[in-house]
């Protein structure tokens, strides 16, 4: 047979067997090309500058290269190992190693660059769609139109050519290193791992689980007040990370087989088909992939975690803006207020207005603080807080000598939990006003300018407020002591009002720089978060697909390895259906365990600090996790299909 024929035939076989590899390759190219096209698109300049995303984009494209590169190298490694027998045979019949490398290179070249061309096409068609998504999440009102970019094409070609060269080089090294004998031996190496469980492995198994649990436990305490200085918190984070990652590794290395072993012991040797196929196989095979699984789990956890957090921020943008601005529009200057109101009147926009007098005063909160904070930036004996009178707050009446705290943001609530009741004391310049703390009000009264970005507002009775006004400490007052909140009565008018507000910005600025519009604030946050979400999502998706492919490839190998077992089982009288049922159970674990561990990791990571990012935890997190699970399951289902074929061929 001539070399050309040989190459063509191999190629045909490969395409049939590795369609998923080709798919992944095409997908990687498409994704990268789309991404780079976006980056080079002139329209993007605007979006980029408006959200300062250029550096972000560049970092992301490097991240993309790393993920895709590692994936392609690893996948190639799996495949060359699978073909080692064939390579050994070529050598046996007298082909030189260089000749074989050459054949492989040509074969790969055709497959690789064929996929690259297709990928580029797809990428270009997809980029418009991706652009639309980007515009949507960053709330840019433009129709996506794209131009083919030569620069993007060239960059894509360069990157993938480099990866190709790297792959061929590793193949060359691999073939160089192998002798004919070792090439034949590669495939049967897992057999040696089937041994009785040693005590050491059991210890590893238990330790792994303990590590993970203690990591989770620590993470739940991270912002609970036990760690009070930044260095302590940072140290705790490093320890958590170490515990969880090491724990995950040990979990795969030992715990899985430890648990399976326990279950098996109970059966006393009497296993049904599900147990034969799942328990016994998982016990040994998961161990040998421990490192790979750890990496996949850790990175998926990272991806899910980051995506959840950015989505939480994005999702909570409106709520956060409400907390910060507290009315549709917030002003801190009487003249600015009148001017704005006049402009609204001129346009016939109905609105309501709140004016709140605000005094800054020091408050002794030591008694109601649930934990003792040291090292953080304030002194519980003298916490500077804004004070307002109950007359300025709708539907609230505070008795003299009592007080409520209002608008206490989520984040602070987690940082410094308060008792339900207790004694506080306002420290005036001369005298003190002791007050009974009655609880919290869940309502932001004044804008973040007064609350220093989220501290509670102290609501007191008018008489106490008057008393304090006489005795206030001028040194800590802000430049403005009046909050003017304008709420538009008709929701539909907000956009127009916001335009008026934006037009007047310069005039406001002359008087006092502290004014805000809720709509602007939330849009701003959405834009910022939209881009991060887009990029993290992009990288996460790429990682998900590549790691899913790798797990699938591993399963293909395992299927081939276990084929003789299926032959025996079918001879013994198990039907294909019986076997398939067992395989389904097995795959449930094979894909389910890394998924569940990854989800758990990210859950605890998100749980420990989500309040720093937004106001809503469950909906955004569950949505991200659900999406991830669905996409991930596809690979599990594909692998079951593959096993179906193997089982069919087994007899």
């Amino acid at each position, binding site marked *: 047979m001539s070399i050309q024929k040989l190459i063509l035939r191999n190629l045909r076989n490969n395409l049939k067997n590795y369609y998923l590899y080709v798919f992944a390759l095409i997908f990687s190219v498409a994704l990268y090309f789309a991404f780079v096209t976006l980056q080079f698109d002139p329209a993007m300049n605007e979006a980029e500058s408006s959200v300062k995303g250029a550096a972000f984009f560049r970092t992301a494209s490097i991240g993309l290269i790393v993920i895709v590169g590692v994936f392609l190298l690893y996948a190639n490694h799996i495949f060359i190992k699978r073909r080692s027998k064939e390579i050994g045979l070529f050598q046996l019949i007298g082909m030189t190693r260089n000749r074989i490398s050459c054949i492989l290179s040509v074969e790969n070249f055709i497959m690789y660059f064929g996929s690259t061309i297709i990928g580029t096409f797809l990428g270009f068609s997809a980029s418009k769609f991706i652009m639309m998504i980007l515009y949507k999440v960053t709330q840019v009102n433009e129709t996506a139109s794209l131009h083919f970019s030569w620069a993007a094409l060239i960059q894509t070609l360069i990157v993938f050519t480099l990866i190709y060269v790297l792959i061929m080089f590793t193949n060359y090294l691999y073939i160089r290193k192998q002798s004919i004998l070792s090439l034949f031996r590669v495939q049967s190496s897992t057999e040696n791992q089937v041994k009785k469980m040693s005590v050491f492995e059991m210890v590893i198994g238990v330790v792994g689980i303990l590590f993970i649990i203690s990591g989770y436990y620590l993470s739940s305490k991270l912002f609970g007040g036990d760690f009070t200085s930044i260095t302590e918190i940072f140290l705790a984070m490093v320890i958590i990370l170490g515990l969880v990652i090491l724990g995950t590794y040990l979990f795969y290395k030992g715990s899985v087989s430890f648990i399976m072993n326990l279950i098996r012991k109970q059966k*006393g040797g009497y296993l049904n088909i599900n147990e034969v196929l799942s328990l016994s196989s998982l016990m040994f095979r998961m161990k040998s992939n421990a490192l790979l699984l750890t990496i996949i789990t850790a990175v998926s956890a990272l991806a899910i975690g980051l995506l959840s957090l950015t989505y939480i921020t994005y999702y909570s943008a409106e709520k956060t803006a409400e907390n910060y601005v507290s009315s549709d529009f917030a002003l801190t200057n009487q003249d600015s207020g009148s001017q704005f109101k006049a402009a609204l009147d001129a346009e016939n926009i109905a609105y309501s207005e709140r004016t709140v007098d605000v005094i800054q005063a020091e408050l002794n909160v030591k008694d109601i603080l649930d934990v003792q904070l040291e090292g953080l930036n304030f002194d519980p004996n003298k916490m500077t807080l804004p004070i307002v009178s109950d007359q300025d707050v709708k539907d609230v009446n505070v008795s003299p000598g009592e007080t409520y705290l209002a608008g206490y943001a989520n984040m602070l609530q987690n940082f410094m939990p308060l008792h339900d009741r207790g004694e506080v004391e306002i420290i005036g310049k001369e005298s003190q006003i002791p007050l009974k703390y009655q609880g919290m009000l869940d309502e932001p009264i004044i804008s973040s300018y007064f609350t220093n970005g989220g501290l509670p507002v102290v609501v007191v009775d008018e008489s106490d407020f008057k008393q304090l006004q006489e005795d206030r400490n001028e040194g800590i007052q802000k430049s403005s002591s009046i909050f003017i909140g304008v709420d538009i009565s008709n929701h539909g008018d907000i956009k127009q009002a916001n335009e008026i507000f934006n037009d007047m910005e310069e005039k406001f600025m002359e008087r006092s720089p502290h004014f805000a519009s809720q709509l602007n604030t939330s849009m701003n946050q959405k834009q910022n978060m939209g881009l991060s979400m887009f990029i993290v999502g992009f990288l996460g998706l790429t990682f998900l697909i590549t790691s899913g492919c790798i797990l699938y490839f591993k399963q293909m190998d395992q299927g081939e390895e276990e084929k003789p077992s299926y032959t025996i089982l079918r001879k013994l*009288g198990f*039907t294909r259906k019986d076997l398939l049922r067992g395989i389904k159970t097995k795959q449930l674990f094979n894909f389910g365990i890394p998924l569940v561990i990854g989800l758990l990791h990210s859950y605890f990571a998100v749980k420990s600090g989500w309040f720093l990012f937004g106001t809503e935890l469950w909906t955004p997190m569950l949505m991200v996790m659900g999406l991830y699970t669905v996409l991930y399951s596809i690979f599990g289902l594909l692998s079951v299909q593959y096993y179906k074929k193997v089982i069919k061929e087994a007899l």
Partner: protein
Amino acid sequence: MTILQANKIHKTYGNKFNKHEVLKGLDLSIERGEFVSIMGPSGSGKTTLLNVLSSIDRVTRGTINIEDHEITAMKEKKLAEFRKHHLGFIFQEYNLLDTLTAKENILLPLSIANVSKKEATIRFDRLAKELGIYEVKDKYPNELSGGQKQRTSAVRAFIHEPSIIFADEPTGALDSKSASDLLDKLSDLNDKLSATIVMVTHDMTAASFSNRVIFIQDGQIYTQLTKGEQSRQDFYKDIMKTQGVLGGVQQ
């Protein structure tokens, strides 16, 4: 009493243009409790015959009855069901699942047949002791010697008390000592449990353990030898003579 009856079985491999008829209208009948060896040159169709008899492969034409069930007419699912209850297997290699211990491997046929765990343990203990693998029951196949592995497969083949046991060169990978060990046990069990055994072998010594040897050539039965009352040594000599006439490799 006849337990297996094969009538005019044909087996053809290949497609329309490239046919290769391996079995050419072969007739065969096996009595209950017999220990039958099948011999013949390499490529003569011994494995093929065993596979069709044991329902792993299908005949092209002809019928096979085992215990009055016509297995050639059964659908795949029913065949699996049939194998589950009536047949036992021992092969040259790839006999055991390498991720299961010896005991787990042996109990597999009972777990499909839904035999109770208690009953399973009783049967296991008896047979495993008989074949001398009780001590290694918790080891994995790669921790067992070749002989132990084959004895394990033998126990597995017997444990669900099948009507008939098929063995394809069970001693092929064993040294002569372990081989005669295994065959001793097999013929022992054949006696005690009056289990029917059909074994394909190249090895004349192995064949001399059975009651009857069938020689195959050209897809037909060439001749048969019955042990009768003679000693194993004499039977061995008979086999050797016939084998000499038959020659080595199928043309």
